[in-house]
């Protein structure tokens, strides 16, 4: 039996094309950096990307995780990458993003945002990474090793961030441990690039990053509205700017534009899912090659509002004294010296919510419960993601915490970057069972 329901007005985002163009030019800028005399660096999306910005405005990066996700989205290329990596002797149990990245390197091909594949992997001038999970540092050690096999020497600097997440103001010893490494890192950057370091550019980049990451949280907070103005599938195309270029001015500017548009959608009651009647959140990266599962959900009138992952990987949040989880405002003043800037970005980063679960799973559960409560979610879909040990760690414990709180939870197995480990038909069938068990029926086509 099918049902017909109230339909909310819906319309596409006006800034959608701007988002597409930003992402397109990001990869092209990296690819073509040398033609303009610029520099290229590689590293993780969680690295302190504001620091290399002090080398000049013509310094471009490609961040590994979004690049791995882009490959995963283009499944034919991803399959070739997996073959190349396995042929080289690496096991398929490793981080799927990392394997995709290595695969492209082994194939000596570079994929652009629109799926265009370019011959010749653009070698970075240096690697700037941090070691947030078991794979992150090792990832680029292998990149360095693979490049060396091709006769290219790529210097690498890796910051250890094992001091962990802080829910409130981070302790001094944690901050000093990382700031000390970044001070050395600035000297290292000067040495490997041959450029004089510009502290003013560093201050600007730190300032941009704080504004951008605070703005993204404000955008996510607007999704508390009913109907939700954004759905998570769309949000993936928007949050990604923060994973690519969180320190660049165009990122903060884009998020300011987006925030205004989303606010306007809320004011006018514009919905992301016209038949919204059931609200869920998810967890960890989705299976990127199978984002159609979000469209399957819509057939039941289900909107995915986001997740701790999409809200807190980039967005900055804090708890108010009365226990509300709210966007953390950027500091009122821009840092003015190298020391101030390094300290500011480290203190800021140590509050990043998506770091919590590495160290304290109960904090992740607490934040997920806050999201369920404040965003008025009816259930949680947990992706037991075999492709990311880092974000999957403790996820079963998070499930128990949510279940104990009386929140319906649907776990499903998959892999963010390796389609061989995701069963679309099976997952869709189980999702249907879950929604039916929640009293939902498929909507009339």
């Amino acid at each position, binding site marked *: *039996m099918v049902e017909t329901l109230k339909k909310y007005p819906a319309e596409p985002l006006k800034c959608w094309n701007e988002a597409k163009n930003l992402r397109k030019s990001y990869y092209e800028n990296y690819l073509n950096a040398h033609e303009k005399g610029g520099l290229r660096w590689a590293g993780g999306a969680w690295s302190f990307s504001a620091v290399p910005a002090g080398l000049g405005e013509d310094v471009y990066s490609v961040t590994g995780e979004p690049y791995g996700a882009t490959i995963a989205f283009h499944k034919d290329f991803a399959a070739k990458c997996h073959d190349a990596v396995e042929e080289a002797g690496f096991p398929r149990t490793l981080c799927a993003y990392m394997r995709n990245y290595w695969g492209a390197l082994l194939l000596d091909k570079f994929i652009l945002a629109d799926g265009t594949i370019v011959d010749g992997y653009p070698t970075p001038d240096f690697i700037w990474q941090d070691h947030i999970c078991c794979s992150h540092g090792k990832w680029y050690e292998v990149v360095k090793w693979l490049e060396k096999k091709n006769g290219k020497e790529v210097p690498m600097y890796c910051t250890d961030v094992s001091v962990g997440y802080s829910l409130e103001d981070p302790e001094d010893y944690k901050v000093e441990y990382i700031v000390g490494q970044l001070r050395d890192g600035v000297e290292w950057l000067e040495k490997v690039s041959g450029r004089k370091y510009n502290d003013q550019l560093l201050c600007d980049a730190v300032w941009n990053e704080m504004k951008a990451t605070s703005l993204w949280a404000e955008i996510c907070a607007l999704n508390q509205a009913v109907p939700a103005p954004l759905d998570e599938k769309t949000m993936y195309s928007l949050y990604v700017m923060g994973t690519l270029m969180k320190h660049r001015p165009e990122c903060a500017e884009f998020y300011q534009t987006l925030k205004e548009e989303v606010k306007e959608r809320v004011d006018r009651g514009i919905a992301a899912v016209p038949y919204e009647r059931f609200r869920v959140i998810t967890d960890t990266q989705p299976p990127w090659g199978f984002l159609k599962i979000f469209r399957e959900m819509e057939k039941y009138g289900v909107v995915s509002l986001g997740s701790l992952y999409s809200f807190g990987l980039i967005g900055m949040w804090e708890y108010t004294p009365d226990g509300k989880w709210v966007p953390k405002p950027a500091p009122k003043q821009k840092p003015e010296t190298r020391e101030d800037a390094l300290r500011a970005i480290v203190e800021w980063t140590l509050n990043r919510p998506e770091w919590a679960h590495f160290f304290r799973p109960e904090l992740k559960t607490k934040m997920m419960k806050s999201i369920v409560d404040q965003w008025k979610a009816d259930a949680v879909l947990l992706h037991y993601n075999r492709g990311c040990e880092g974000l999957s760690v403790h996820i079963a414990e998070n499930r128990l915490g949510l*279940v104990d709180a009386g929140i*319906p*939870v649907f776990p499903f*197995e998959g892999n963010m970057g390796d389609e061989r480990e995701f*069963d679309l038909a*099976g997952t869709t*069938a*189980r999702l*249907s*069972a*879950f929604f*039916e*068990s929640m009293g939902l029926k498929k909507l009339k086509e």
Partner: protein
Amino acid sequence: MMTAGVDVGAKMAKVVILKDGHVLSRAKGLVGFDILKSAGDVFQKALKDAGISRGDLQRVAATGMGREAVLQKPPINADEVISEVVADAAGACQVVPTAKTVIDVGAEEGRGIKVEGGKVRDFVINERCAAGAGTFVETMARALEVRVEDMGPMSLRSTNTIPMNAQCCVFAESEVVTLIHAKTSKDDIAKAIHDAIAGRISSMVLRVGVEKDVVLIGGVALNPGFGPPLEKELNTKIIVPEYPEFVGALGAAVIAANPQR
């Protein structure tokens, strides 16, 4: 009101015709390559046994992995499709109203469902593995060169416990071959196989928690060798209703009779 529930499973299609809460007929048969035809034949048999025609049925609901194949397609012309989990819960609570935990083990899937008054509270399904399903017993029966229906009685004759370590149907078959070569009796091997499947199903069901009454349904519930080790693993008594393999179809028929549920 007369309704029908059609459960198109991985191996068998089951049909239940219901009139005002009472079962008029049941029929089952193998699902072949042509799902619609084989399920349709079973449906026609159930209609014939009940002495009615399709036009006498107010509603027909389909469940099981092949349910979409019979939606609004003759001869079944199912009016709606329902997931196995929801149908199982409704059916189990129809036959055992005190049920709180339903365990459904079919040919290719095992499910654990927490229920309350016929509604699903939580559920878990085995993921992409036959090691916790009826196919596992069939495969092992082939390795032992015995009939699958003999496996249960054989296992009940054994008093020895032989652990099977393999977590995979394919590797478990190799383990069975090794046991055969080691001159282990077939009864002991049959018990080891049932202990293994019970272990896998129980560890899955424990993820949603076990509350009395526990009801075992699905085709594997007909196997007398499976219930005892499962009771031991879960440390609780298990109720196996009459016609356990028809419970999903019954649930679909019950739901079809209450479309505004």
